């Protein structure tokens, strides 16, 4: 489209060359740390405990991964993260799309106040203490995975991306459904949602990444090691090396440094695997958010 003239111009100009170099450099910086982690996770502890890093997995070793697979701790953490991500994303999508639909309908006396109620927490929050007291003293959710999920359930930014998308649905289609006698709820369920699948995917992916990476609420509310989600387990492993003793040792010494790196790989693994397929949705999401602005 509008890039035509930018393409058509003569051979390489200096600025283009600079750009290619600049972009390549930025790419390298973005990706290189991941290689360091991956390579280190396959390097023997003897080398790591000397240098702290390794550019190539040599001497090659699978000790850390063996340790991870040997006991229940990491598997438990995977289950915890999986639960938080799947249940959290499902609940978040349900709440977000319902709320967004009602706001998008522009109902008199309802939509506008709801929008304000959704927006306001972005500007003014109760802060940490009231939330902490609410979750631990009143809802008694300490050590429950729901304590990690609930504080993040509705992201105003994502609600407004959805509102924008719902408002772009062709009014004529909704109207004809009304004429055919479909109830508003049925229209939402049978027409609104199916027609908005792409945007639901965008919003769902954003929620999923948030939940997968979330550790602050876990840090606050989860203290049982067997309920730790992955990022919290990893954080504990950084904060104190002795935490690695909670992992099964099968006799010999735990490869502490290698283990950290292997656990990091395990933590970003799913995101890394899903990324090539999901990336265009993310780009679409923030592009939408930006143009809605």
């Amino acid at each position, binding site marked *: *489209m509008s890039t035509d003239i930018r393409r058509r111009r003569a051979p390489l100009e200096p600025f283009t060359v600079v750009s290619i170099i600049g972009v390549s450099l930025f790419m390298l910086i*973005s990706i290189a740390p991941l290689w360091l982690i991956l390579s280190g996770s396959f390097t023997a502890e003897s080398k790591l405990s000397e240098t*702290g890093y390794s550019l190539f997995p040599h001497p090659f070793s699978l000790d850390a991964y063996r340790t991870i697979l040997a006991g229940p701790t990491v598997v438990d953490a995977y289950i915890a993260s999986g639960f938080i991500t799947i249940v959290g994303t499902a609940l978040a999508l349900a709440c977000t799309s319902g709320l967004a639909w009602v706001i998008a309908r522009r109902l008199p006396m309802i939509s506008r106040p709801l929008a304000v109620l959704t*927006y306001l927490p972005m500007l003014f929050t109760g802060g940490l203490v009231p939330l902490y007291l609410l979750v631990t003293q009143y809802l008694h959710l300490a050590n429950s995975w729901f304590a990690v999920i609930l504080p993040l359930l509705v992201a105003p930014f994502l609600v407004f991306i959805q509102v924008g998308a719902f408002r772009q649905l062709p009014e004529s289609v909704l109207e004809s459904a009304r004429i055919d006698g*479909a109830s508003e709820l049925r229209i939402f369920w049978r027409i609104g949602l199916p027609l908005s699948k792409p945007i639901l995917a965008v919003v769902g992916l954003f929620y999923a990444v948030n939940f997968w990476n979330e550790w602050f609420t876990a840090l606050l509310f989860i203290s049982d090691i067997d309920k730790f989600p992955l990022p919290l387990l990893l954080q504990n492993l950084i904060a104190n090396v002795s935490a690695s003793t909670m992992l099964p040792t099968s006799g010999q010494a735990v490869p502490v440094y290698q283990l950290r790196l292997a656990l990091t790989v395990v933590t970003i693994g799913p995101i890394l695997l899903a990324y090539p397929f999901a990336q265009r949705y993310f780009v679409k999401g923030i592009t939408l958010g930006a143009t809605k602005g």
Partner: protein
Amino acid sequence: MTEIGTAAAERSVSSTPPAAAPAPAKPERTRRPAGRVQSSLGVSLLAVPALLYLIVFHYLPMAGLVVAFKEFDISQGIFGSPWSGLDNFRYFFSSGDAGRILLNTIFLNVLFLAATLAAGVTLALMLNEIRGRFFKRIAQSAVFFPYFVSPIVISIILQVLLAGVGGSGGLVNDALLGLGLPQVSWYTEPGPWPWILTFVKVWQLGGYMSVIFLAAITSIPEEVYEAGAIDGASRAQLAWRVTLPMLRPTAAILLVLGVGRIFYGDFGTIYAIVGDNGTLFPSTDVIDTYVFRSLRQLGDFGTTAAVGLFQSVVGFVLVTIAVLIQRRYSKENSIL
């Protein structure tokens, strides 16, 4: 449900016959009032879960802020604890920590905001120069990826780069050694940390910002570039004199959003990286990490709530001012 159904049926009978797709606008308007109330109540049920959630998790805690004015005792609960006036605030502001953490919060956020915006714009301008479709797509994917990396993982990466084993090792120190420069014990040296954290933020958000700016670039009309090209402008001149000024509204919005958050420290990133490493506090401790520590380690609910309230109020004032200023300067791009 059935009520709504019949109401809708009545409506369709009383109105013009179902005109399907190209429904004319006028008859639709006149038809609205009948059954509108029931149907809007019915559809509003969809918002009930989210509404309940917002009330419980966002609005009730606001009421809980009264803890800031109390001498909180967990056995007596929020509302049973005795009042203490402004004692909690006085305690915080006279503790000697206040000045440092407020300054750190603002200084770090200004650094982060300036650096990520600059990196985002630069990267977008450069990505826009790339002609190979495939390379461009790969590049965009690569630079956007760090946005999805958890701060904990970043913390591990930093340790690999800066700490190695026992504090003075790691890739960077080995590189310094190779260049004949003195090594640095990074984790005991607070001085460079604002810059290290800024670098981390650029790594995290540079690609993300560039995607936003690139979206804005593609909406710039073609004719502007044609005119520039006809006048013999080089690609660098087009980028500098055409694209860059056209990105101003987008940058303004991001700037306002950033300024509005300037009083909120980046807890996730900073705590994941610095943790409880006290030697780095002089340059990295911000409101949010301070609040978290005083809650977790000291169990000081009153002071912590007071700091939180102070933060929210100042933050709210700053957002309002930022939005008002932005509105004044660009009416058409206002964000609220």
